[in-house]
């Protein structure tokens, strides 16, 4: 038996319920990322925020971007960040001060940005259709390999350069060097 468009016995739509739940998960885990003391837990909360954002992409009718979000962000970038965290932690790092001394200026700036964006969004009339249009993956593929093929190739060159540069930067100095590495 298929479930209906609304919650049983109410007029609340399932889409709205899912949106509210995913939005609370997204904002809550993002707040944990920027406020928690232990940075490894920050990394794990970042994975939770990426996952809830993938759910929101599905709500927006874009399963390909949701799958890419899971593969690239949860699968690759989170692992990279967790590796970097575990390679750069000193023993006393979590017990020391988490925020800069001027963090309150940053907080004011963040609140101002949020207020400006919310005010702009609410006072502008967007050319919205009022309903989510699903995006077919075959349309994305056709567009990516016809009209956007030059940006696609540029991004592939950029990724190669970034990987080579990352290896070069993170490599240890050759032991033959005489310089002091203290």
């Amino acid at each position, binding site marked *: 038996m298929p479930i209906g468009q609304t919650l049983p016995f109410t007029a609340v739509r399932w889409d709205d319920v899912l949106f509210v739940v995913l939005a609370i998960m997204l*904002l809550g885990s993002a707040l944990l990322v920027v406020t928690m003391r232990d940075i490894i837990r920050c990394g794990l909360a970042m994975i939770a925020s990426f996952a809830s954002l993938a759910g929101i992409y599905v709500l927006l009718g874009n399963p390909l*971007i949701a799958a890419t979000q899971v593969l690239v962000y949860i699968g690759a970038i989170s692992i990279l960040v967790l590796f970097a965290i575990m390679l750069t932690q000193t023993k006393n790092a979590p017990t*020391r001060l988490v925020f800069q001394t001027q963090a309150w200026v940053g907080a004011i700036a963040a609140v101002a*940005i949020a207020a400006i*964006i919310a005010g702009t969004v609410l006072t502008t009339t967007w050319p919205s259709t009022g309903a989510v249009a699903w*995006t077919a993956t075959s349309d994305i593929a056709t567009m990516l390999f016809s009209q956007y093929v030059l940006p696609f190739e540029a*991004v592939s060159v950029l990724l190669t350069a970034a990987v080579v540069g990352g290896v070069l930067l993170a490599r240890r100095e050759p032991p033959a060097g005489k310089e002091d590495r203290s």
Partner: protein
Amino acid sequence: MSGSLDSYLILSGLLFAIGTFGFLGRRNAISMLMSIELMLNAVNLTIIAFGAFVKPLNVHASVIALIVIAVAAAEATVGLAIVMAIYRNKKTPLVDEYDSMSE
């Protein structure tokens, strides 16, 4: 609520503001990079929301979001490699102790 563009735009604005605060306020360099990832995710959410609600942008928005994700991956690779290289020299991940230029 899930059928209006405004709610998605405000959600992404809030996510961007949280990322801004993390970037400006945290002391740990890797925390700052994680906050940049949050901000890039907020931008991507905006692009996808416009693509879902504005018919002529539908397919273009998905392609642009894919490119943004690839560039974000490249940025994370290089940024973390730079943090690792600095950590090897300075033995700390805290950005306010990277003060050799001011001495």
